[in-house]
């Protein structure tokens, strides 16, 4: 995460431009036209259908509703035809809902009976939504799709702009109030230059997905929704700025940075300090496709394979055979390389249809991650068996770790289960402060640990990751969070076991220097962030990294810690990376 107030050195808004600020994710910059994701139309239930500015008669109203249903279904079908995989299935199913005869007939019956259009659509959609919600699980999640049909039909009938993600005909900057994971999935990625949202936080799912795709992203940009569609904007993730109608100088600056990024990406040597101290540079992935995409020069392996992505679309737990096939594919995509697999991290902000605990008041503190073993042990045992099977089939040894471990006893239980299943290299995540404070005892039970800095910051600072307005507290630069990272790294050095970092903080080149100085042995991040981190680490000796780490630990606030580190960073790194 970059801090928007620092590093915004080269913003030249120029005449006629204006600058909106937010929190940047990543550090790239792009220029392109805006595509606005429209929110649901906010209209009164009795808004009339207008023809030539006057309320339509019964026959014209009926015709408008029929046209709306047909048009929405056709539009969704066309979108589905241009999509692939899961997105295609979701869009096809949504198109079929819009074309549903029962839905249309019931709405038209109410309209014929004199009900206003919005009220009629709402009443019928609500009735189906209630049935879906009563069924629970997978169906309850489809209510979002049903509501999006409602929003589109209402907008079409009233002649309002269509809500949702627009079809992108050219490379565009996608601007939304907020993006649900389903909206993100519906994006035509080939034409997305950057993602900008008014809400959300830098560790929310939009930001993480944008990071994985290497797209520059800005969150918490107040006023972004008012930028007209089609307006040219410059998005600078490093500076956290959205410049509307940028002038020539700013556009040239963005182009210069893009050229420099290409140059950085050309360096694919193994990660190491200037004096040759090796620091493994790894990628975070969620699917076998990701593994195949990131494999290649410049990526020394995978430091975090988030297996829950395999489970998210499923209504029942994937079988051992299905899982083993996916894991084998990942291991084969990265032969001879380190692959760290995290067992299912469901719960909290990643609910699963078949594993979510009902009625948790405080899910981030509830039965999530490894704790699911208390209620649903077969989920973990099936996954461990599938991993052992993949290990045998691929002839490679995955490093397997459990999330949300709080005590050495939990680490021991997990290690026992994993080794009994046949998993050879076992570790745990350190993301609960209790685990960081007792890292030495935890390391006695396992072969390695990996710090999840996003959750570690959330739990150390008692700050919900999804509350964007608390982003300053959630900052990994908070000295208290750095203390927990330092304690874990020290324990690893004392016992001679690897301590990696797989949170988004590893992707910040300045933070990467601190982590190397603290004794972290591998850094795992979105593949798009590796080049800048490699460059920063390469230009400092291990001793310089230690001095930088000491300066960060000596600061009394997050901004002071970052400023102290920036002051000690090699000028060449500051200039080249625009820090």
């Amino acid at each position: 995460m970059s801090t928007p107030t620092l590093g915004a050195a080269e913003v030249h808004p120029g005449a006629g431009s204006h600058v909106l600020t937010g929190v940047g994710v990543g550090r790239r910059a792009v220029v392109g036209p805006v595509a606005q994701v429209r929110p649901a139309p906010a209209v009164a239930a009795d808004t009339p259908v207008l023809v030539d500015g006057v309320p339509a008669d019964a026959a014209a109203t009926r015709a408008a509703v029929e046209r709306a249903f047909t048009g929405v279904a056709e539009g969704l079908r066309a979108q589905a035809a241009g999509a692939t995989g899961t997105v295609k299935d979701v869009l096809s199913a949504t198109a079929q809902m819009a074309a549903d005869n029962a839905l249309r007939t019931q709405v038209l019956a109410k309209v014929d009976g004199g009900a206003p259009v919005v009220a009629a659509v709402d009443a019928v959609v609500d009735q189906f939504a209630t049935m879906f919600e009563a069924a629970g699980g997978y169906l309850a999640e489809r209510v979002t799709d049903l509501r999006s049909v409602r929003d589109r039909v209402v907008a079409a009938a009233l002649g309002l702009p269509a809500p949702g993600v627009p079809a992108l005909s050219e490379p565009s900057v996608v601007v939304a109030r907020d993006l649900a994971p389903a909206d993100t999935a519906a994006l035509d990625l080939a034409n997305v230059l950057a993602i900008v949202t008014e809400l959300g936080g830098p560790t929310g799912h939009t930001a993480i997905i944008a990071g994985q795709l290497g797209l520059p992203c800005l969150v918490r940009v107040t006023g972004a929704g008012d930028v007209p569609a089609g307006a040219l904007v410059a998005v600078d993730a490093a500076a956290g700025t959205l410049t509307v109608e940028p002038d020539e100088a700013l556009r040239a600056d963005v182009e210069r940075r893009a050229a420099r990024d290409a140059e950085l990406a050309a360096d694919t040597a193994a990660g190491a300090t200037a004096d040759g101290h090796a620091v493994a540079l790894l990628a975070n992935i969620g699917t076998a496709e990701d593994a195949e995409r990131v494999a290649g020069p410049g990526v020394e392996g995978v430091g975090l394979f988030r297996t829950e992505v395999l489970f998210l679309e499923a209504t029942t737990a994937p079988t051992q055979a299905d899982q083993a096939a996916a894991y084998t594919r990942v291991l084969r995509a990265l032969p001879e390389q380190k692959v760290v697999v995290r067992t299912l991290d469901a719960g909290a902000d990643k609910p699963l249809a078949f594993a979510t605990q009902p009625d948790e008041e405080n899910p981030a503190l509830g039965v999530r991650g490894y704790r699911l073993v208390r209620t649903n042990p077969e989920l973990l045992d099936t996954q461990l068996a599938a991993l052992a099977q993949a290990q045998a089939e691929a002839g490679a040894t995955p490093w397997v770790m459990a999330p949300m471990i709080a005590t050495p006893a939990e680490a021991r239980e997990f290690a026992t289960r994993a080794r009994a299943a046949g998993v050879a290299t076992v570790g745990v995540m350190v993301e609960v402060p209790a685990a960081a404070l007792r890292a030495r005892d935890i390391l006695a039970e396992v072969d390695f640990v990996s710090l999840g800095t996003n959750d570690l910051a959330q739990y150390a600072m008692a700050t919900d990751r999804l509350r964007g307005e608390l982003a300053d507290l959630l900052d990994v630069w908070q000295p208290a969070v750095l203390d927990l990272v330092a304690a874990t790294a020290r324990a690893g050095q004392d016992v001679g076991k690897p301590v990696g970092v797989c949170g988004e903080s590893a992707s910040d080149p300045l933070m990467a220097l601190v982590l190397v100085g603290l004794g972290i042995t591998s850094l795992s991040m979105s593949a798009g962030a590796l080049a800048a981190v490699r460059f920063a680490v390469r230009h400092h000796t291990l001793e310089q990294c230690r001095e930088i780490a000491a300066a960060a630990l000596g600061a009394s606030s997050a901004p002071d810690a970052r400023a102290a580190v920036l002051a000690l960073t090699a000028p060449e790194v500051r200039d080249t990376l625009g820090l």
Partner: protein
Amino acid sequence: MAQRTVVVASRVGLHARPAMLFTQAAAATGLPVTIARPGGQPVDASSILYVMSLGVPGGEEVTLSAEGEGADEALDGLVELLQQDLDAPEAGA
């Protein structure tokens, strides 16, 4: 009235892709076809909303009914469809 009882083979049940394929096929018969869970209210088999809201799990029986010319042939076709694992192309993905 023609009637058939069949076990839904799709592991995920009549959700998602299986529901989509089934309702499309039911609509394509051009006949009023209904589907019901054991002892349940029959609903319009061409409506994805009604079919999904039945929440039929994989391995459970459903009863299909249709009226009109060609009803038997139409139901035989739908039965054959439900006997396949319609989610299969997605398996392991």
